[in-house]
């Protein structure tokens, strides 16, 4: 493995970027972080952690949700398969629809004082994920989590 200086790294990253290519909504499983990053708008964003599972990205232009991060996918699958074995049906068909993950979290998470805001955000995530038809290839992460 080659070690790069800051300059070499910057050049390499700038070289792979292609902002001229039309943007496509996309969800990516990042194995190193055991997380799923999803983005459905090219807008620049700031992040906000809404709970232990999801960090949401808000557009700097519109303040709407434009993406986010689902953390600890393996642990989430394990928890879901223990609590709701039927969840397996939703993750067996690949790629996995992103809205299934949000729905599962919303249905099983205990209520908290600031639930209304969190629930609204989940509703927004579910609706946008379905509208944008965003799914994610998580390989066998959920199968090996059980």
């Amino acid at each position, binding site marked *: 493995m080659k070690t790069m200086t800051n300059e070499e790294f*910057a050049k390499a*990253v700038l070289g792979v970027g292609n*902002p001229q290519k039309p943007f496509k909504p*996309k969800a*990516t499983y990042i194995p*190193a972080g055991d*997380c799923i990053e999803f983005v459905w708008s090219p807008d*620049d964003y700031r992040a906000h952690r809404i709970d232990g*599972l999801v960090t949401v990205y808000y557009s700097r232009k519109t303040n709407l949700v434009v993406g986010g991060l689902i953390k600890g996918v393996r642990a989430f699958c*394990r928890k879901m398969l223990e609590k709701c074995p039927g969840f397996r049906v939703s993750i067996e068909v690949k790629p996995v629809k992103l809205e299934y993950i949000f729905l599962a979290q919303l249905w099983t998470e205990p209520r908290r004082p600031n639930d209304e805001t969190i629930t609204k955000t989940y509703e927004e995530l579910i609706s946008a994920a379905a509208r944008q038809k965003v799914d994610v290839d998580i390989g066998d992460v959920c199968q090996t989590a059980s």
Partner: protein
Amino acid sequence: MTVTYSYEKVMASAGRSQGQIQEAACIVPMILQQPKAVFLGLMRDADEPRQEREEGWLCYSGVPALAYNEDGSSKSAWPGEVFLVFVNREKVVYNWYWYQCDPDDPGLPEGHATRFRERVL
């Protein structure tokens, strides 16, 4: 310190705005080399197994000298925000983003006291 970068994360960022590509190329290394704080252990909810993302998982926090507009032009850092960079125990950088700062300490992320196990820098 030598780190590697998640290929999936870099490629995901590459399809976005020129500003986000510049963030990956320039701001991430800047924060890793000159953080204001480093936190150990990414906490999850109370009913979650904690060990998985605690030991060796780090979050670097700092305020870079600049930020980028969508077209890739530079500007001053976003006011009231910090830039966070996440590194797993194998020293793989797997995510980064701007986040609201702690109102009492502008170099730290809001909620840091409950979000991380401990501050190591």
